[in-house]
């Protein structure tokens, strides 16, 4: 990526379009944080591209003064993959929702993750279909009453991070729409990562699913219900709680330091590169557990797909004996009529 010629500001990344989200929508906060984060990443506007599907969240590209493509429902990963293969120099952010990315687009999400295409994938999880006025989504909880589930949903929800890990994702993070201090650094880490970085953002839809995350976000309980992961640090939360591995059940358990002889030593230390740990962390949910926030998993050994694709192209160019199309057409058996 070319370095921008002069220092950019938030304004440089703000397009002239009126924002069309509902007042109070969590999407505003995410937009603002990203617009503030990009200048610090030293990226240029012209090499930055936002690719989205369809949904409220997928309106995001219109508000960024960069290149952008608001595609069709569920297909952003495929469009983004093609774009990255066409020009690996581009810095691509993919925007999707829980419906766009996990319902109609679930398959593309699976494959973009396993291929490890170098993109930042931001999944705005409001546990609802916003744009189509409030039907339940694949992350909605069982029992949710919506226009299409008047007697309550009966579909067990997908856990985005677990799905992403199962799909072979190599950078998995989770963060919160309105928590700019957490969101910004997660964006920065995702951007640094060369490969598909998957970020689930817990987002509030005040119109159709207000408070879907209040059991995690509400000030009074945030401390007890959020586990803020830091690589190399013990997994502590709340006043003096922490997570410990129960080696018998291979499950994590909540313990209190100072009680039952538990000491700081017993608390599991977070290791981003440990997939087993990530698998266990991904599934934790209140009320039994805090929800794990931050970088759940980051595998730096993997290679981005787009690089490998172009390496083959370069290798073929360097080694092929057929050096022109005329030669290609004449390779193999030919004969001449005079």
């Amino acid at each position, binding site marked *: 990526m070319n370095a921008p010629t002069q220092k950019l500001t938030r304004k440089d990344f703000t397009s002239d379009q009126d924002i069309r989200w509902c007042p109070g929508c969590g999407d505003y906060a995410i937009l603002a944080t990203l617009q503030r984060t990009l200048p610090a990443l030293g990226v240029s506007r*012209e090499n930055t591209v936002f690719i989205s599907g369809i949904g409220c969240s997928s309106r995001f590209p219109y508000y960024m003064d960069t290149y952008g493509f*608001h595609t069709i429902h569920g297909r952003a990963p495929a469009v983004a993959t093609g774009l990255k293969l066409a020009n690996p120099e581009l810095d691509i952010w993919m925007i999707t929702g829980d419906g766009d990315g996990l319902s109609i687009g679930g398959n593309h999400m699976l494959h973009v993750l396993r291929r490890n295409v170098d993109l930042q994938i931001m999944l705005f999880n409001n546990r609802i279909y916003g744009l189509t006025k409030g039907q339940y989504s694949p992350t909605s909880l069982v029992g949710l009453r919506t226009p299409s589930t008047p007697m309550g949903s009966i579909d067990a929800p997908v856990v985005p991070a677990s799905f992403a890990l199962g799909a072979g994702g190599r950078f998995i993070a989770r963060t919160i729409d309105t928590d700019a201090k957490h969101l910004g650094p997660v964006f920065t880490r995702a951007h640094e990562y060369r490969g598909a970085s998957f970020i689930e953002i817990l987002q509030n839809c005040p119109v159709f699913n207000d408070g879907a995350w209040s059991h995690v976000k509400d000030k009074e309980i945030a401390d007890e219900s959020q586990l803020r992961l830091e690589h190399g640090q013990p997994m502590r939360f709340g006043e003096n709680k922490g997570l410990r591995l129960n080696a018998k059940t291979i499950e994590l358990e909540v313990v209190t330091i100072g009680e039952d002889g538990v000491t700081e030593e017993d608390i599991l230390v977070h290791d981003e590169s440990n997939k087993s740990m990530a698998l266990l962390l991904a599934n934790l949910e209140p009320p039994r557990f805090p929800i794990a926030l931050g970088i759940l998993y980051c595998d730096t050994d993997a290679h981005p797909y787009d690089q490998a694709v172009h390496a083959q192209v370069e290798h073929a160019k360097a080694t092929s004996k057929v050096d022109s199309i005329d030669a*290609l057409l004449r390779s193999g058996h030919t004969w*001449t009529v005079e």
Partner: protein
Amino acid sequence: MTSASKGSKLHRGRNAAQTRDTYAYEDMNMDGGASPNKLEREELDSVVIRFAGDSGDGMQLTGAQFTHSSAMVGNDLSTFPDFPAEIRAPAGSTYGVSGFQIHVASHDIMTPGDAPDVLIAMNPAALKTNVGDLVDGGLLIVNEGAFTKGNLKKAGYEQNPLDDETLAAYRLVKLDISKHTLAAVAAFDLGTKEALRSKNMWTLGLVLWLFGRDTKNTEEWLGQKFAKKEVVRDSNIAALKAGHAYGETAEMPTGVHIYKVPKATLSPGTYRNVTGNEALAWGLVAASKLSELQLVLGSYPITPASTVLHALSRLKNFGVVTFQAEDEIAAVCAAIGASFGGSLGVTTTSGPGIALKAEAIGLAIMTELPLVVIDIQRGGPSTGLPTKTEQSDLFQAIYGRNGDAPLPVISASTPGECFFQAIEAARLATKYMTPVMLLTDGYLANGAEPWKIPSMADLTPFPVEFAGSETPDFHPYIRDDETLSRLWPRPGTPGLEHRIGGIEKDRASGNISYDPENHHLMTKMRAQKIANIADDIPELGIEEGEDTGDLLVIGWGSTHGAIRQAVRRARKEGVQVSHAHLRHLNPMPKNTGELLRRFKRVIVPEMNNGMLVKILRGEYLVDAKGINKISGQPFKVAEIVSAIHDHLPAS
């Protein structure tokens, strides 16, 4: 129509309109099967040979090699491989029979021939499924060694047809090819199964002899192919030579003579054999060069399109990026993403894949991005007949999307033309910023023809100009006054940052617009842009005949050869009939309506239940009639000749 396709068997004598497409017929038709005992070489204008055997018998290879050798001696030729749908059907089953038909001639031909003059049947199932097509008096070579009880039963024969009168109408040559092959390769110490693998080479040797050719070319080819497997190479060569020698030395039964098909007079140049899918792949690479764009292919395997993906995957040295996506939707979306990024996005598939891509193609129409969509048609609907050919995606190509969503549709008429039409598709896509649909079919995809190799220097480049940073008052929907094409601003260009998407956009600013009047105008604009292409394509010409008369036969796609031959033949009979062939199907050449109206009657042969015919009627209010064959098989020349007769105006 299909009932007529068996016609060649039912009719004897000289009614050309109802027989196959060779002039050799009379020489070969021996009244009641009796035939002069002459072994001297017989000069023929053209001969049709069909190899048929079990999937495992290597018939495709045999056919391809015979094709090659025919090309080398300067014949014109046309081929029709016909695979079973199964990968490896159980040995001996009728549905596991694989066939390869080749038409060799001393004049220019356009079809693989209606009915074989020579049939090689490697087992009972191959005999059962193919003998009905053999012309009366045709030469029938069977591998007697495979006519075991088990095989006969699998083929559904109650008793051995070699032993009764079943085959009396043909000049039957029974040979125990299996035994001869085993003998030929005895020296190599192979297992029986292994040894029998060379059966096809023994047979090829015999057939080469029959046509007065030597085995040199084939030996060379075997040498290359099995360079690292000496035993395989040598045993095959041994079998090949043994088959040839057998013809030369063995006492051939009555009725077998050597065929000699003289050189065709082809226009000077360097030639090669090419299948439609090869030509397509090469055409795409040539288009990438001519447009100065990187080629990005998004594809998902599907018969009969997969080999384009395969071919392009081997051409990475030309900067080609191939992406085997998780499905057809991802494939087309990746191509669209690549086009957005400034590459030439291409996607290849067959009918069911096009159905899946419809929504995304609409996105490319709305965002006005170039995209080449190639549909290699097969039998439908649904999974249909995956390995058979058909032209039944025309409606889908032109109309199969939500909303008013026009795009250019073009087609290829011959395997070699696939090369040029791939370039034409790319030219239109980039010049008009639009997806373009190119239709070929299974018959073109796999059929081979000798192809005069073009030189890149003779092709017109169409380098793409991207919008530059300096574009005044930039927005992404600024249009060229003439083409109505929008700018192509490439991500990475400073100053052209912009957003596009599938929602209707303001004609002035390119921003989202829900304004009613704007939508009306933009819909009209998109339609006009495509309609204008009629000014940028050649007028519809006449392939054969006058440009006015009693009857016009108008077709599109791979029916070209059969129609042209049929019109030629009917004209020889004195019928006032002409042939026109559409290569641009949407929009059509400007003079199409006018040309149609210059004929008293118009017929439209199609390998579907009537599509182009409906469009022509609606567009030009001409009472055109459809001639439809939906059997997964190409038209026979005789079928079209007969349709011509049926539709002549009463005089």
